[in-house]
């Protein structure tokens, strides 16, 4: 698909706040994975390196998910017993 010029990957500057626009652009580019992919493709990534990276990312995603669930469990509000385990 052809990306339209100055429509895609574009942030308008409002109130002459250029810094805000740049930060927004960087954040979107980073969260979409453009910047990581750009950095990764500067040099050839050997297949072993790629496997290692992908495995690491998988493990990290699983760990993050578990940890997120744990934290939300500990920080939950409106629980029947307000301080579980404390007498």
């Amino acid at each position: 698909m052809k990306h339209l010029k100055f429509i895609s990957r574009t942030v308008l500057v409002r109130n002459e706040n250029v810094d805000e626009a740049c930060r927004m652009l960087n954040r979107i580019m980073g969260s979409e994975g453009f910047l990581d992919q750009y950095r990764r493709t500067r040099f050839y990534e050997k297949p072993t390196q790629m496997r290692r990276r992908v495995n690491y990312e998988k493990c990290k995603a699983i760990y993050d998910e578990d940890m997120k669930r744990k934290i939300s469990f500990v920080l939950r509000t409106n629980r029947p017993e307000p301080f579980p385990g404390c007498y």
Partner: protein
Amino acid sequence: MFGRILRDFCRRPALLDGQNVSRYLHVTLPSEKNRDRRSYLASVPSKDEGTEGEKFVYIDSAITKKEDMFPDVNTPNMLFGAVKFSEVPICHIKSSSNNTILHVTKANGERIMIRSCGMEGFKNTRKGTNIAAQATAISLAARVLELGIHTVRVKIQGLGPGRMSSIKGLTMGGLKIISVTDNTPVSWNPLRSRKQRKL
């Protein structure tokens, strides 16, 4: 700590077949070396790639509304001082790790002015700094203002120290920036790139 204990332990003469043979096992140097490298790497400031705001969110920007920050169908026809958005001159910025090139063109791509850190008088590694990029941008802005161009759209390409600082320089030089576009060439099925650097 572990290295020191082991070293003291190994300094004692060991008894082998009734004769004193003192042996040394050196572990301090490799372990200290490793630690030195780690502390050195921790103390080195991270490389400036002009990607401020990629990892951290500023609270004031997170709570404001963002609907009017993104272009839509009507954006090309929006007027900026009696000029349509699609006809405003473009400032192309190519920032690499070693240099920054700023290039102001008309909307159709005709060249108006080109400046780079090397042309500005910075040589060798000094070209690839954010200060050089900012100085270049300021001088470019001054030259372009003389030609009667006051508003530009910015198109950035590549990651490098000049990515953010050149935009800052343009605003400091007096140009009005109405939009920021990223034009970094990113491919998900790229050609084989050059081999890794050996460090």
